[in-house]
């Protein structure tokens, strides 16, 4: 079967890290530690596992970060190279899997928990906080925090992969493949919204209006009693989508602090040789970009005692505000099965705005992976929210 495989290559990673930001083409050319390969079709040997035929698999920001060498080496211990990326997957069961019959259309909750690894549930898994599983490097499958980072399971950027029953969620009737594809990122957004600790009427800042930011906005609007939701958007189509997804207002990145200051009546300070910040600000800020600038905007625009939520994989940033303003800095990773994030996500992707947006998903066959990644790197500028592989395309 055809698959895209990420492999270990120190030179490529170094080149991508050093020059990828300035020469984006490098990330899908010389510097990409990714190759199109023919692999044996996966086999299922353990109970509870089944083969999936991939219908679509999305390209996530974390995939791009990994391919460009931007991801922290912290994560090198929880992946097993070489592996097939792709953790946003909608597929079709090729085997019966416990209560699910072969042929069932499913989406994958990618976290490889104790249940999938065939080990005794850890404390987090017992509590239903499966995204916090402590056994992600041991058990029946090789280390890997998720499907799409694990050598043994395969990933969505291929024609087939394997998944455990605990990871599978049947796709509700009436949802298109594109909508189903969005269930995983929306489930993450559900988890983010619940982790954000938003109280009635809280003012929330969402920095970023890519898929992560837009879905977080939707989840915040639908699942919390947030008051004003201010979304930071770089591109025109993102502004329109953010409003459709529940934003009260949308601002350009350079206007963010000024607008937050204005709406909250905060005081603005201008430190020497550093970015301005507010005394006062929003109650909750959510970084949905993961860049230094975005994270610092969140830290600088949040009132003392407020909460900053790291939804994107964070970059190094000045944490002075977290200390000085006693901010709660909260990470949100994937989604937890105990909170039925995928069930809630299934409802949210049926939302009209998401249904409309799903029609703009750009699908590529596997062999056009360079174009697909180029597109994903420039998705915001090109007016796309989600780029995906569809291995069925020739």
């Amino acid at each position: 079967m055809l698959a895209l495989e990420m492999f270990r290559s120190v030179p490529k990673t170094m080149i991508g890290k050093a020059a990828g930001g300035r020469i984006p083409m490098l990330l899908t050319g010389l510097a990409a530690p990714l190759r199109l390969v023919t692999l044996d079709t996966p086999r299922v040997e353990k109970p509870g596992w089944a083969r999936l035929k991939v219908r679509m698999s999305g390209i996530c920001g974390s995939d791009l970060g990994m391919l460009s060498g931007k991801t922290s080496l912290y994560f090198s211990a929880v992946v097993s190279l070489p592996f097939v990326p792709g953790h946003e997957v909608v597929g079709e069961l090729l085997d019966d899997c416990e209560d699910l019959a072969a042929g069932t259309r499913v989406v994958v909750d990618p976290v490889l928990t104790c249940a999938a690894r065939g080990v005794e549930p850890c404390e987090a898994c017992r509590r239903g906080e499966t995204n916090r599983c402590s056994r992600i490097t041991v058990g029946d499958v090789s280390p890997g925090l998720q499907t799409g980072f694990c050598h043994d399971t395969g990933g969505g950027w291929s024609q087939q992969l394997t998944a455990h029953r605990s990871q599978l969620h049947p796709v509700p009737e009436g949802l298109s493949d594109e909508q189903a594809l969005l269930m995983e990122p929306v489930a993450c957004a559900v988890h983010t919204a619940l982790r954000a600790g938003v109280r009635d009427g809280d003012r929330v800042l969402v920095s970023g209006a890519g898929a992560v930011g837009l879905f977080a906005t939707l989840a915040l609007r639908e699942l919390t009693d947030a008051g004003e939701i201010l979304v930071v958007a770089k591109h025109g189509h993102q502004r329109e989508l953010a409003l459709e997804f529940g934003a009260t207002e949308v601002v350009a990145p350079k206007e963010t602090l000024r607008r937050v200051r204005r709406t909250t009546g905060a005081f603005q300070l201008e430190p020497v040789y550093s970015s301005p910040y507010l005394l006062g600000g929003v109650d909750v800020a959510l970084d949905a970009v993961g860049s230094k600038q975005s994270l610092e905007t969140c830290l600088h625009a949040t009132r003392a005692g407020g909460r900053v939520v790291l939804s994107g994989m964070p970059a190094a940033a000045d944490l002075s505000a977290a200390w000085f303003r006693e901010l709660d800095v909260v990470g949100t990773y994937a989604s937890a099965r105990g909170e039925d994030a995928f069930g809630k996500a299934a409802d949210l992707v049926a939302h009209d705005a998401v249904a409309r947006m799903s029609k703009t998903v750009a699908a590529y066959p596997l062999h056009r992976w360079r174009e697909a990644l180029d597109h994903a790197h420039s998705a915001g500028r090109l007016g796309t929210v989600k780029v995906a592989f569809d291995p069925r395309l020739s």
Partner: protein
Amino acid sequence: MTRPGFVLEVDDRTPPLLVHEGLGFRLEEFPLGTRVIYPPEPVATVPDVDQAIREALLNPVDSEPLPELLFAGMKLTIAFDDLSLPLPTMKAPDIRGRIIEQVLEMAAAAGVDDVELIAALALHRRMTADELRHVVGERVFRSFYPQGKLYNFDAEDPANLAHLGTTEKGEDVEISKRAAESDLLVYVNVNLVAMDGGHKSVGVGLASYKSIKHHHNAKTMVHSRSFMDHKHSEMHSSAWRMGRLIGESVKVFQIETTLDNNVFGKPYDFLMKREWEWSVKDQAAMLGMRRGLALAPQKLRHKLFHDLRGAYGLTGINAGAVEPVHERTVRKVHEQQRVKIEGQADVMVMGVPYLGPYNVNSTMNPILAACMGLGYYFNSYLGQPVVREGGVAILYHPLDEGFNTLHHPSYVDFYEEVLAESTDPHVIGPKFEEQFATDPWYIHLYRTSNAYHGVHPFYMWYWIAHALDHLGDVIWVGGDRRAASRMGFRAASTLQDALEMASGAVGTSPSITYLHNPPHLLADVR
């Protein structure tokens, strides 16, 4: 003998005419038949300024002479117009300082020792120490400023405001507590235009937002026709009601001064002359300045223009009761600025210069440029506007100076946020004004820094409400397209393009009137 203002009709002998556009000017060839309105030349000034001041104080109108109002143990407050007047700033010594010196001498002779001097800022920015020194003079500054007896009015200091009641129309009257509790309040005006002075001096200059909001709003402004004619201005009617109420509890001794229109001293005096009368020297100065400005960076051009000082002469001074004093002042202002015009035009052309009341030592941002053109110049009429209803205003200004964040912080938000949503003064007022007026950060900056009050950009936009209501189109020649568009206007590269764009509203052969100012003129349209 001073020549009065006049109307020139452009013919084939008319040379290109000077048009101001921000930190520069251009020579424009107007279509044949264009009417060009020139202000009168500087009228006669008083021969001895100090003597004229003394005369006014000793022989006031409908009031006892000033010395008779002064007595030992009294509380005397002297308020004076801020740096928004005159334009440009007057060469030292400023007329206000010369008047204040004489008032203080009389007060000292009467044994008055409780004296405070207040810059009547209303919601304008605080003046710096140097700016205060320039207005009151070195001696007064040194005597009062270090002791805290010379200061800027603070309209956001509730402990130092006094609510004097409401007018018969329910308007709150809240002014400086010190002024309200004084035995005598002397107000020193510079009446640059007919709009200034009268009951507007104390009723606005020393008032809080609570009071000012009653007349500074879109509804009132659109019905002020015009601001330069206080008997037909809703804004002035409101200020007059307030002033009369103030007069019931505070004794006000009003001093109003009028100036000639010598706004550009040598070697820039060619800017005030009629182009066909330029001497060789004038033409050389003009060419040199044009070439220099074309090469100079914006900062240098800004410095060059903002360092200009007006060589004004005093044309009159009147003191005493507010209303009769103001009537005399208005007559004097008319003498200097009034030009009779027959009929309205389809198109009104205005060059917006580098300076307006709210960017002294600061930046003419797009909102201020709009206010200068569509607020001040458009409204500078008696009778009816220069342009007919549904006509077009063509203005010259590059709209590219950006915002001064020290002086105009709330303008940035107004421009980016409020104007992005609506440019209709009637819409933005109810939705945003209160938010900006009560924003604690803006209040903090107004009180402690040198920032205009948070609500100030709204007032600028209300200023143009009448023009927006009256005009069919507004086109900026040489204006930044994005800035013009943000304000709901259009931009053109040349006058010909602008006229082409205007043809949809006024046809292809419109009647055109160009207001050749500065110096300021008041169009008396019959």
